[in-house]
């Protein structure tokens, strides 16, 4: 039975694809070491005996890896079956809490016809796995899940084919049950382990995965589509799981890096002798890079303190957060474009607003961490990153090595949120390990993570619109300066539109965040929609629906409004309590939220008391994990909506700690009412990002409704009265 269900197809995403590798501004380390001869990195120390994947790896290395990833070149590069029957699925994707480990296990188990627990994942070890691209852009679900399913289905077909030949029976008489295949009489059976013990079968694993392999239809799913817990959950709960910062190697020492006292500061001179005089301390200076390593972190810190006291720096003026938005606007490339419709005959009403979105930090709870170890000119690094093959390239570039001589291993790590695409910590650890000739562990401090990791870009957004007498939007002008193009276009039907992103000169190092610039663009657009709805004298829900054709976006908006009882809630007048809504689409999924806020004018506080969100991402693959992602996205969004904002002055971040930069905690938890809309008729889209994009605008709109004063900046604050 050939099934062509939409969830089986690998469709081109219906959203703009972004080259994330170009997006990340990398720290350009260059430790001009001599080029080494080509030595294969594979062999020693691998978790499993990989033979065919090694070939695939060479291929990937020649193609340069990174980027979107080449995927598995053949079946053996995707699925490894041990002679003991152990099934290992190989992927370049990482697990940073977003649920790829469980989801990809489900995908493989479903197609192999085995239980979830009999599949192991080998993730993000560049020495063993295919390059599936970075783990970003909500791509694991729409891209990697289908690739893993194809590989697993091809393996299942091989087992069937093998049995058919062995038993000399027609293939369609063979049945699969409980991870085994049986002949028609149920007397003879074979397992995947039997396949691995046949040389002839092993040969078959060298073939490419056929693109047209038959996949299990959604209605027959047993493992996909049902809740699956994280396979290594028990190790997390017992403390046994080794995060990147927990990796220990024999003889390992601990590092600290000298940081400039301000952005752009150049090291003029430093006296290394006080550190060099300390017992068992390794000190490295390589141009602007200065680092120390010692048998424990305290001693490394002492050593660093001694030499940093001697350092002389040359500083350059840096813009501060107070003048940030003027600075971005002044430095807009080609200037901020003017509204092309300004001279047209005015409609019934016009509106105009400028929005400010600050820099914020991802602040994953595990800061950047890496352990680097050199052996015979080859480098192995364990680190927490969303992009293993790009980190491998970064290391290869910094040390002038062929990528084959660098192995990057990404253990399941402590959070990324778009903030861990780069490999600077890995490069720093490797530089120290090179001189120390010992494995080196480097874990950034919280202050370093807040200061030297990249930020979610700040934005200045200009919005102008005109309405006709019927309250329809006739012109729409929307310009994002500095933060990016994602969701800069409007999903609403408008007469004429001019939506653009304009680059500026960012004062801070900036890159991805959960849902990229769509957090900024959705904020501005959805808040502006409420302003013009108010100008038109229309309810925000009705105003949106009157301009909205996309059926999927309409569906989530209507669903959230219904569950929240929006029409009744807007009529209910309660002092200090207000409601707001917002919707949006990004990365092929659709979201809407209604929120209730409590406003304490005396204390100047806004508290979100209820969030009702409807979210749709096609066919749901793991409902338990999806719920976690949506709930987490909502609460993380409350932080950006109400509090988070980087403050900086004279090239220094002045709130680089959890004491000064308050992230959501238990007492921020509102009542959550999450509605996951399952669409088995649609292909699955990722869900780790989009749920966040409606939270800040919904909160802002509730505050606007309560105060009647425009909200035009994040974090949302009550206007002075």
């Amino acid at each position, binding site marked *: 039975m050939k099934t062509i269900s939409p969830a089986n197809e690998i469709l081109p995403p219906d959203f703009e694809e972004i080259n994330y590798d170009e997006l990340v501004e990398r720290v350009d380390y260059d430790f001009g070491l001599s080029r080494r001869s080509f030595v294969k990195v594979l062999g020693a120390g691998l978790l499993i005996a990989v033979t065919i994947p090694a070939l695939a790896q060479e291929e990937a290395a020649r193609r340069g890896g990174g980027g979107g990833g080449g995927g598995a070149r053949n079946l053996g590069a995707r699925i490894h079956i041990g002679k003991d029957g152990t099934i290992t699925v190989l992927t370049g994707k990482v697990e940073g809490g977003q649920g790829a480990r469980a989801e990809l296990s489900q995908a493989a188990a479903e197609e192999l016809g085995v239980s979830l627990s009999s599949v192991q994942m080998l993730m993000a070890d560049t020495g063993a796995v295919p390059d599936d691209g970075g783990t970003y852009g909500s791509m694991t679900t729409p891209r990697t899940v289908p690739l893993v399913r194809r590989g697993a289905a091809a393996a299942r077909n091989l087992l069937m084919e093998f049995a058919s030949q062995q038993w000399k029976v027609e293939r369609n008489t063979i049945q699969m049950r409980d991870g085994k295949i049986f002949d028609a009489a149920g007397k003879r059976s074979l397992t995947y382990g039997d396949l691995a013990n046949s040389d002839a079968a092993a040969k078959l694993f060298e073939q490419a995965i056929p693109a047209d392999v038959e996949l299990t239809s959604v209605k027959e799913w047993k493992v996909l589509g049902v809740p699956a817990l994280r396979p290594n959950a028990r190790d997390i709960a017992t403390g046994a799981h080794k995060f990147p910062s927990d990796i220990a190697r024999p003889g390992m020492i601990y590092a600290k890096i000298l940081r400039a006292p301000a952005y752009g500061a150049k090291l003029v001179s430093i006296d290394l002798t006080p550190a060099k005089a300390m017992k068992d301390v390794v000190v490295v200076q390589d141009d602007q890079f200065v680092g120390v390593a010692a048998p424990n972190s305290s001693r490394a810190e002492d050593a660093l303190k001694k030499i940093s006291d001697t350092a002389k720096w040359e500083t350059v003026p840096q813009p501060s957060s107070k003048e940030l938005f003027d600075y971005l606007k002044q430095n807009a490339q080609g200037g901020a474009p003017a509204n092309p419709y300004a001279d047209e005959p005015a409609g019934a009403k016009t509106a105009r607003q400028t929005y400010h979105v600050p820099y914020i930090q991802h602040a994953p709870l595990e800061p950047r961490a890496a352990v680097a170890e050199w052996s015979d000119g080859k480098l192995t690094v364990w680190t927490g990153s969303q992009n293993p093959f790009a980190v491998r390239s970064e290391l290869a570039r910094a040390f002038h090595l062929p990528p084959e001589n660098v192995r990057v291993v990404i253990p399941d790590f402590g959070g990324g949120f778009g903030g861990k695409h780069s490999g600077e910590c890995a490069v720093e650890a490797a530089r120290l390990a090179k001189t120390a000739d010992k494995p080196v562990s480097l874990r950034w401090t919280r202050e370093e993570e807040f200061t030297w990791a990249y930020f979610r870009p700040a934005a200045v957004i200009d919005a102008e619109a005109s309405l006709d007498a019927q309250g329809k939007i006739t012109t729409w002008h929307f310009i994002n300066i500095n933060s990016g193009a994602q969701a800069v276009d409007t999903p609403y039907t408008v007469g004429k539109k001019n939506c653009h992103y304009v680059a500026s000169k960012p004062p801070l190092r900036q890159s991805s965040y959960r849902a990229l610039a769509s957090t900024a663009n959705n904020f501005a657009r959805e808040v502006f929609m409420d302003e013009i709805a108010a100008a038109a004298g229309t309810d925000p829900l009705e105003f949106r629906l009157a301009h909205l054709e996309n059926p999927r976006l309409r569906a989530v908006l209507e669903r959230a409004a219904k569950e929240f009882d929006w029409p009744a809630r807007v009529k209910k007048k309660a002092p200090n309590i207000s409601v707001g809504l917002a919707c949006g689409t990004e990365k092929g999924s659709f979201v809407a939220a209604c929120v209730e806020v409590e406003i304490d004018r005396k204390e100047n506080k806004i508290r979100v008391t209820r969030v009702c969100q409807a979210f749709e991402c096609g066919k749901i693959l793991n409902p338990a994990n999806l719920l976690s992602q949506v709930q987490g996205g909502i609460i993380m969004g409350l932080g950006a909506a109400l509090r988070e904002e980087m403050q900086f002055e004279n090239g220094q971040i002045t709130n680089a*700690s959890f004491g000064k930069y308050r992230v959501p905690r238990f007492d921020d938890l509102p009542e959550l009412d999450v509605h996951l809309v399952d669409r088995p008729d649609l292909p699955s889209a990722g869900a780790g990002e989009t749920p966040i994009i409606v939270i800040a605008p919904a909160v802002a709109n509730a505050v606007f409704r309560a105060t009647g004063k425009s909200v035009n900046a994040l974090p949302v604050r009550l206007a002075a009265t």
Partner: protein
Amino acid sequence: MDTKISFTLNGKPRTVTTDPDRSLLEVLREDLQLTGTKFGCGEGQCRACTVLVNGVSKASCITSIGDVDKQEVVTIEGLANGDKLHPVQEAFLAEDAFQCGYCTAGMIVGVVGALKQNPAASEPEVMAQMQKHICRCCSYTKYKTAIHRAMAQNGKAHA
């Protein structure tokens, strides 16, 4: 100046000779290879590093090793009894509470500590203690349910 420090760690006597000003967290992780306790901020603001000292939950990043001389320390690694997990660990697993899991050890030890200090504590009292903990994945909804489950079980155990 290195000093000899003796304490009970997860029920067993341990002695380390080191600078008494080093943090308990660093000694646990670097000298004793107990990496279940995590570094999150180094200033007691996130509680990823929570351990029990004489049954009271403490941020080990701002507790010096010298301070636990002759004291009793319990880490996440000391909660299970062989293969049998602590009820709080069971509750967190049953509720699929965590995402990246980096704050989980601190959360679990924090709940164990709150219930140890006051076995009759109400849920709001326990949640007030947990306010010190950060989960950056913001998995607070499921954590709260897991804490509720752990407390319901605790109630049964004490009934």
